[in-house]
């Protein structure tokens, strides 16, 4: 049932007058206030409470958006940016109503691919599937980096919210791969950030190649969940596609064997990514409805995309990998390496969905609910995180669905317990489990990303007061009337 929070956002102007203004800006085909249209935007897959927006608009130009922002700021009407609604954090649920700006329908163009400096200039609605197809058809030697997410999820949102992808072990957070942004701030000012900052009215398409060395204003928009402005263009880095690919599967028979492996393989700089899952996730992926781990099965499996320029380079990488495993096994772990492509053909081709990204892992989305505690994690706490969450899963009678990664050459890690659930029957149970897991993980130093507001409320109790004060000052300075996605980070 959709709940409507009581906050009168139409104190300064009537709802009818807002509607008239929106019709004037966007045209009648691209504005709606009908419940049947608003309803899908009122909720997502997660446990976060639904809330109806008042209007949906579908923009096609920055001029429209500048006018919208000026208008909304004058009358304190909330604006919530939306691309595809696939974030697992309730981030586009309009907690205080207002206007949802759906970028996915018309502002979804790939504006430029720069072959020389390897970046893509994108509108906010571009999806991973769209970008991959465009590159494969037009620039087959270039690649982007893809998450374990459906092809219809958004590239720009993922980058702005520090998502992670299948180059994570090399490049780290996707926010690090942003070269530049075009943003509309609350006063209707259009700012270009990054090397594209030269030029009065327009930046050349080939000028979005770097975000340094000027003061890095990009940070004002990263991980703010749309609270500081509307992003209208984003340049993301691309990489050369290496011709030799040999993904590897690693199986871990000891509960915490994965932890030292992630640390070692991360710093060895030989893999593009390590996507490590509880074995229950692997079984779910091939269609076991309620997977459990049996004795003799590994606790964890890891899929590792490996790529090289030559066979010799690949063999050298594989040799380093084997040596790491041998060294760890001599110290007592029970880790084994298997060729992933060959194994998948025997085991089940569906397993390749974890490697061929982006992909729709159907079984992950087959229930009405999906949520997670997705966090950046200190890698020296991996063992404790695995053991403590394992005990919590057992206590609640839920199979462990953990997902771990090593990031940026071993500098940090990702720890992400995932839960699929039936919204109308299991939600209370899952929320209880999720909260318990969140408390343990935060105590161990994990920092959640794409964070829902119930979780940022927990974080605020632990964050140093100086940070909170600075954060609030910035938010107030960037958005004094709190119109940009209000409620996020408990603003």
């Amino acid at each position, binding site marked *: 049932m959709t709940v409507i929070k009581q906050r009168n956002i139409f104190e300064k102007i009537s709802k009818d007058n807002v509607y008239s203004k929106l019709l004037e800006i966007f045209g009648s085909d691209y504005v709606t206030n009908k419940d049947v249209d608003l309803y899908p935007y009122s909720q997502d897959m997660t446990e976060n409470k639904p809330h109806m927006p008042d209007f949906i608009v579908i923009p096609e130009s920055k001029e429209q958006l500048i006018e919208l922002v000026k208008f909304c700021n004058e009358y304190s009407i909330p604006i919530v940016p939306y691309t595809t609604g696939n974030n697992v954090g309730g981030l586009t649920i309009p907690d205080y109503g207002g206007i949802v700006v759906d970028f996915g329908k018309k502002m979804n163009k790939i504006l430029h691919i720069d072959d020389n400096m390897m970046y893509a200039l994108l509108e906010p609605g571009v999806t991973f599937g769209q970008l991959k197809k465009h590159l494969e058809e037009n620039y087959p030697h270039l690649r982007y980096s893809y998450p374990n997410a459906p092809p219809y999820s958004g590239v720009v949102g993922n980058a702005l919210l520090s998502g992670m992808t299948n180059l994570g072990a090399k490049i780290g957070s996707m926010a690090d791969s942003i070269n530049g942004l075009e943003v509309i701030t609350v006063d209707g000012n259009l700012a270009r950030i990054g090397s594209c900052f030269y030029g009065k009215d327009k930046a050349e398409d080939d000028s979005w190649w770097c975000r340094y060395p000027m003061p890095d204003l990009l940070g004002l928009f990263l991980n703010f969940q749309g609270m500081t402005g509307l992003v209208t263009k984003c340049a993301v880095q691309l990489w050369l596609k290496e011709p030799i690919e040999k993904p590897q599967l690693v199986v871990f028979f000891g509960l915490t064997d994965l932890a030292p492996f992630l640390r070692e393989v991360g710093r060895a700089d030989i893999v593009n990514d390590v996507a490590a899952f509880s074995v229950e996730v692997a079984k779910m992926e091939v269609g076991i409805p309620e997977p459990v781990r049996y004795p003799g099965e590994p606790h964890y499996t890891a899929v590792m995309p490996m790529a090289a320029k030559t066979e010799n380079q690949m063999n050298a990488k594989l040799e380093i990998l084997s040596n790491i495993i041998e060294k760890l096994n001599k110290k007592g772990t029970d880790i084994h390496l298997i060729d992933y492509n*060959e194994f998948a053909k025997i085991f089940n081709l569906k397993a390749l969905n974890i490697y061929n990204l982006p992909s729709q892992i159907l079984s992950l989305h087959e229930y009405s609910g999906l949520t997670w505690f997705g966090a950046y994690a200190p890698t020296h706490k991996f063992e404790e995180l695995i053991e403590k969450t394992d005990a919590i899963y057992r206590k609640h009678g839920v199979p462990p669905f953990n997902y771990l990664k090593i990031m940026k050459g071993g500098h940090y890690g990702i720890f992400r317990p995932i839960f699929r659930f039936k919204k109308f029957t299991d939600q209370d149970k899952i929320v209880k489990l999720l909260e318990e897991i969140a408390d343990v993980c935060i105590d161990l130093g994990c920092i959640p990303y794409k964070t829902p507001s119930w979780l940022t409320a927990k974080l605020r109790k632990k964050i140093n007061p100086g940070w909170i004060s600075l954060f609030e000052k910035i938010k107030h300075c960037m958005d004094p009337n709190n119109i940009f996605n209000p409620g996020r980070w408990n603003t």
Partner: protein
Amino acid sequence: MLNIEFPDDLISLSLYNIFSSRKDERKFIKHAKDWNKKIMLHIEPFYPVTVIFNGSNIRFERKEYPEPDMKVKLHINTMLDIANDRLNPFFAIEEGKMIIEGLGEDSEKIMRFYNIFVVSMQMAAQEPNVNYYEINKNTR
């Protein structure tokens, strides 16, 4: 027509995958139907699974049966070498990479084992079972 029970452990799932792609194939049916044998397969570093052939049915048990008709032990990477034609299965036996107990001199048993297990693996490696959305539709 053979009935293959849908299992829920990793090794049996693999066997299910490679058998199910051939379950309507005449040659496979000829070898698997009415074999009425229990074949224990231990793919290291995993666990033993007993494949039970009973009339038109094939099912899997996640354990070492007390008195199986055959015991086969090999490493997963040896299995992949055989499946991908990098290692001849007879050389694998000779080199001790695949250990088989209970094969004896029974040529029919050798023939059936070879056709059901080795050929199916090789076929799956060369032409993977693409019916992956079909295999579990009855269990959802």
